[in-house]
């Protein structure tokens, strides 16, 4: 066991999977000698050499598209896109190519690749460095999507993603890359894709969240003094509606918290799903505490935009009072 930050846990998982499987290679901008702009790949170039840790040209579609070719060629590429705001140029290769090869070829060609992308706001970064586009990819069949909220899950989910024979997006909530440490086993282990985690149990209300906002939810729950169940989705696609609906069938009330804009965000899917599965147990409409339907503002105002403890607390109170 080691006491690691989330980014260290990622680094460790990469090292261990590369040691284990020579088909695993990394490609991305500045991931080599520089170790990645967040240092997630620190030391890997030195350890595994330039054939396995490859600095790519500045071209996200190129990174995604060649990763597809590498995967078709039998390897297990791990492309990195430097910030979620730069997934745009890779969108076509990711959604129309990587996500479709398996069904397009009726199983003939798979794309076992893991796309690593730092995600989310709160670090006072420039424009296009603070978005939360996960719903867009959740609406794209053919991808799996995970987002850890803790070092333990980060390591276990990344290992699962790398070993998964399907294309997986591994979103890394950059706000908590180094926010706290956790005991992480030295040995390899897998956190299964598709299973949410019940962070704490409760009877009166269910909160569903993922990524960096899980931390804010925990704080709000603690302050509330109420018996609240917190579910960290961990896997965003496919969503573990079973865990969510079991919880809401018990509590009767639900709040979803995420950073992305409200309209057509993942909160809508969870609310709709909760209504479908828990209709007769629902005592209040599912509340969504999320980003506004605006572009994430530049950093002077980013804390006005991001859902925070206060907004979560209000939603808890109001939902319980309903």
């Amino acid at each position, binding site marked *: 066991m080691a006491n690691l930050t989330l980014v260290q846990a990622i680094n460790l998982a990469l090292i261990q999977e590369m040691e284990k499987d020579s088909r695993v*290679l990394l490609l991305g901008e500045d991931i080599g000698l520089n170790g990645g702009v967040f240092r997630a790949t620190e030391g890997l170039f030195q350890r595994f050499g330039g*054939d396995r840790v*490859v600095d*790519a*040209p500045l*071209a996200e*579609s*190129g990174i*995604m*598209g*060649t*990763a*597809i*070719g*590498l*995967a*078709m*060629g*039998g*390897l297990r*590429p791990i492309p990195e896109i430097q910030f979620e705001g730069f997934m745009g*140029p890779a969108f*076509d*290769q990711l959604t*129309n*190519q990587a996500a479709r090869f*398996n*069904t*397009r*070829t*009726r*199983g*003939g*060609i*798979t794309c076992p690749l893991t796309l690593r992308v730092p995600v989310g706001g709160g670090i006072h970064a420039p424009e296009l460095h603070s978005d939360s586009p996960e719903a867009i990819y959740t609406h794209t*069949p*053919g991808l*799996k999507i995970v987002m850890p909220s803790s070092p333990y899950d980060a390591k276990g989910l990344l290992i699962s993603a790398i070993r998964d*024979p*399907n294309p997986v997006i591994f979103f890394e909530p950059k706000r908590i890359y180094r926010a706290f440490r956790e005991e992480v086993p030295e040995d390899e282990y897998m956190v299964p894709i*598709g299973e949410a985690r019940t962070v704490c149990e409760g009877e009166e209300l269910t909160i569903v969240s993922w990524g960096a906002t899980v931390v804010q939810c925990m704080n709000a729950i603690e302050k509330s003094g109420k018996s609240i169940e917190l579910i960290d989705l961990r896997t965003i696609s*496919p*969503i573990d*509606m*079973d865990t969510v609906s079991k919880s809401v*069938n018990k509590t*009767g009330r639900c709040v979803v918290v995420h950073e992305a804009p409200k309209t057509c965000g993942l909160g809508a899917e969870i609310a709709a799903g909760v209504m*479908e*599965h828990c*209709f*007769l*147990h*629902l*005592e*209040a409409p599912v509340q969504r505490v999320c980003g506004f339907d605006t572009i994430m503002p530049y950093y002077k105002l980013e804390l006005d935009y991001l859902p925070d403890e206060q907004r979560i607390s209000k939603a808890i109170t109001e939902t319980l009072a*309903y």
Partner: protein
Amino acid sequence: MPVKTIFETKIEHVSILDEHGSFDADLGAGLIPDEDVVAMYKHMMVCRHLDEIAFKLQRSGRMGTYPENRGQEVPPLAAAYVLQEKDWMVTCYRENAGLFWRGLPMEKILLHWMGDERGNHIDNCNVTPPAIAIGSQMLHATGLAWSSKYKKDGAIACTFFGDGATSEGDFHEAANFAANLDLPVVFVCQNNGWAISTPTKLECSAPTVAQRGIAYGMDCVQVDGNDIFAMVKVVRDAVKNARDNNRPTFIEALTYRLGDHTTADDARRYRDADELAMWEKRDPMIRLRKYLEDKDLWSSAQEEEQLAEASKIVTTVVKNAEEIEAPTSNDFFDCMYTDLSPQLQLQRDTMRTSSLGQDPSQVTIQPKEGAVQ
């Protein structure tokens, strides 16, 4: 010196068997054994027949949109002839002649255009399915070449695309990755004069498309794409450059789409009849037949025989394609992932997305005690 030349380059055009049937022995002699030339001619006859039949299938409502390959048989066939089995051929949708040479069952292509993904399930011939998104496939070729270099298996990738495709950003990125990372890729642009109704000069206004490759410091060359000898020569050089030096090459093959863009298109709306007539005279099969006949390698009798053979082959292919059992909706669920999530399984088994339809038991769920209701 305040102004100095720091880089010089040129583009060459290669032609061996020209449209008038004249053959350059200096370059062409011994390039391809006679029996192979004959075999390729025979193969082109079959391909062209399949193309005609496919067109008719569409017209009679037995197939969806189909892009005729007619007139563009040479570039893909030459590449397939040169490539080794372990190499990859990553194509767009006018490369039937090359794919079939490599062993792709012809019914696969028909099935694809009949709206059936099983046409894309391809075993053991290292080719990829038709690329519908223009420009998307070259990056996959670059990645495949990269995987071969990584695995040190000695294979290379040869990718095909149209003149229009060179306008897409993905073409640029594919070529740039290949050049900068020293990857064994052969880029073959089939410049057939048009991208649907858009003439090549609107896609690439440079004097040649070949010079696109100069941007990446690649070798580049223009070739008569209706000349099987010239095509084999330049592809062979490029493949060697890839295999021996891990260096990509850009080949511009000048050819022409003798048919409409697809069966959904009517080229008369935008294309001069004169232009078409001129290119019909440059048909690669005319000059090749003449060449073979001049060398006594081919006769009218053989032509007839092969026509009959082609017809026989294609009849079987069409039958196979048409008689395949109907797909079921399970197919598109089961193949989304290598595993099936419970949600997807429910959708598949109920063929519904409405939750009540999926789980009728919900109707009788008892309200929780104390619920607001």
